[in-house]
């Protein structure tokens, strides 16, 4: 369910494959202050999420009924929630869930989608037809309704959510990859290799794949943002990963009824969720600009 618009431009001009290109790209990225700051934020967030059980004294599942809905204080920098759990701890544990789901879904979706797109684009014909029709059908099903429907059939655990979101996300990577392959297929190097009789797989791996990396990387980053938003949406509605597991969407949903009196319960998860999304989007934009200077604005 990644977003189309940012990526259509990149399809036309894939760079990469040249030696030294990566070093150039990294330099360009570092010079983009917003993207660099975003990368730093994300790394810090990921580190905090991974280390959360070690560095934080509170257990995200332990309630304290004497300290319900306390405002932020020295003991609880983000305050406590409706049954006395430390909000900072829950937000960081929620980051573990969101980041894990986001990365896993994107890895799987991109992997599957790219493979499908490669096959469809390279071989064309019947393979292309079948795969692209499957993609079209997946696109036509309203994603949210699909997610809710699937959740009612499966038990909503982390892995079923990952499965559902992966099913919704792979079509996009497939289309992207296929478009890439189609444009590269006609290039001289590839045609020469074919004329010389190189095996298909070799051609795919040696020529096509490396040239397609740029949009895939960008799409991956932006896709993680979309998946995190989708997971938050599902747990906000109560049909995603269930409480008492700390999910950002679930925390925001529960805090809604206290929003007039205890806004900290909504504010902090929403802020962290929002910043994560912004950072991922800036990073994605930055990556696109760095890896594909022809498109630089």
């Amino acid at each position, binding site marked *: 369910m990644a977003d189309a618009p940012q990526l259509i431009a990149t399809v036309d001009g894939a760079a990469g494959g040249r030696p030294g290109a990566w070093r150039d790209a990294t330099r360009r990225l570092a010079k983009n202050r917003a993207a660099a700051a975003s990368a730093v934020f994300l790394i810090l967030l990921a580190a905090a999420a991974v280390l959360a059980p070690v560095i934080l004294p509170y257990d995200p599942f332990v309630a304290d009924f004497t300290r319900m809905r306390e405002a932020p204080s020295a003991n609880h920098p983000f305050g406590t929630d409706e049954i006395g759990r430390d909000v900072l701890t829950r937000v960081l544990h929620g980051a573990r869930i969101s980041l894990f789901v986001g990365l896993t879904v994107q890895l799987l979706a991109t992997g599957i989608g790219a493979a499908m797109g490669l096959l469809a684009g390279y071989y064309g014909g019947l393979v292309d037809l079948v795969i692209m029709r499957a993609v079209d059908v997946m696109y036509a099903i*309203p994603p949210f309704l699909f997610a809710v429907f699937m959740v009612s059939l499966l038990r909503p655990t982390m892995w079923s959510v990952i499965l559902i979101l992966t099913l919704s996300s792979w079509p996009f990577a497939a289309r992207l990859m296929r478009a890439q392959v189609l444009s590269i297929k006609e290039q001289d190097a590839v045609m020469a290799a074919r004329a010389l009789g190189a095996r298909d797989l070799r051609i795919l791996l040696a020529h096509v794949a490396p040239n397609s990396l740029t949009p895939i990387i960008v799409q991956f980053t932006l896709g993680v943002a979309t998946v995190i938003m989708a997971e938050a949406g599902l747990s906000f509605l109560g049909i995603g990963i269930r409480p008492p597991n700390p999910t950002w969407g679930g925390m*925001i949903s529960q805090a809604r009824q206290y929003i007039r009196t205890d806004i900290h319960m909504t504010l902090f998860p929403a802020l962290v969720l929002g910043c994560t999304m912004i950072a991922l989007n800036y990073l994605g934009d930055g990556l696109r600009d760095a890896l594909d200077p022809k498109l630089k604005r």
Partner: protein
Amino acid sequence: MAGYLVRRSLFILATLFAVAFLAFAATRLTPGDPVRLMAGDRNVAPEVIEAWRVRYGLDRPIPVQFFYYLGNALRGDFGMSYQYLGTPVIDLVGPAALITLQWEVVALLLAIVVALFLGVMAAARHNTVFDNGAMFLALIGISLPDFVLATLLVIVFSLQFDWLPVAGAGTPAHFVLPIVTLAVRPCALLSRMVRASMLDVIREDYVRTARAKGVGEWHVLHRHALGNALLPVLTVIGILIGRVLSGAFIVETIFNIPGIGRVGVTAVLQRDYPVVLAATLILAAAFIVTTLIVDVLYAVVDPRIRYGSG
């Protein structure tokens, strides 16, 4: 072009057919006897049960049932609800679909108009404060989850300042906040897209030629650049419509609007599968039809483009 359109239409019908069949099969494979579910705990006369069997082909194999379903659907009969016993599905889904159509179309139009304006202006004032500011706002618009945005809007506009209603669907005022909430993301996405597209085109030779000929700046933007910039934007609009149609569920839930998104998901949670099926089909059909419209517009705007393997 006519041939292209015919092929696209056929393709679209085929896709809709496939989606309908998959959804139908999925709901039929869930446990429970449809007759028992339709009757619930009421004492329904045997003649009526027999009428149901005949009308819906309930004792036939699933593929045959599907054709019965399609036939009935074309006449507006989507079956009977499992949750609200004795109520035809169309009574639950029809009014909801109309409500959703109305307010979402408004939201989309708003998003498109504002995005076009912002995108063109940002491109024209490239790298100025306006440009950077607008793009920053756009990025926030993309990043902010709609449920957070909705809650914040309600706090500010309804509770703090009492300007707008909190929830419901009675008057036009009720729709202001939901429309704004729903329009923010598509608008943000689209304005970035428009700006990028405009910037691409502005640098093109024919624009420079027009400028060199002394054509006014606004004229340049308007006639020469915008038209060509719109092509990729059109495709995106088509996709956005689809996303918006289904994603409006969260907004409909928060603002308590009885639209098709909310009806559909509530039906899933209530295991009211006939309603789920009808809602899915309506949403899928809406998406597919708008895709076709966008394709037609695309062809109209740029008939030079040839369509290959689609």
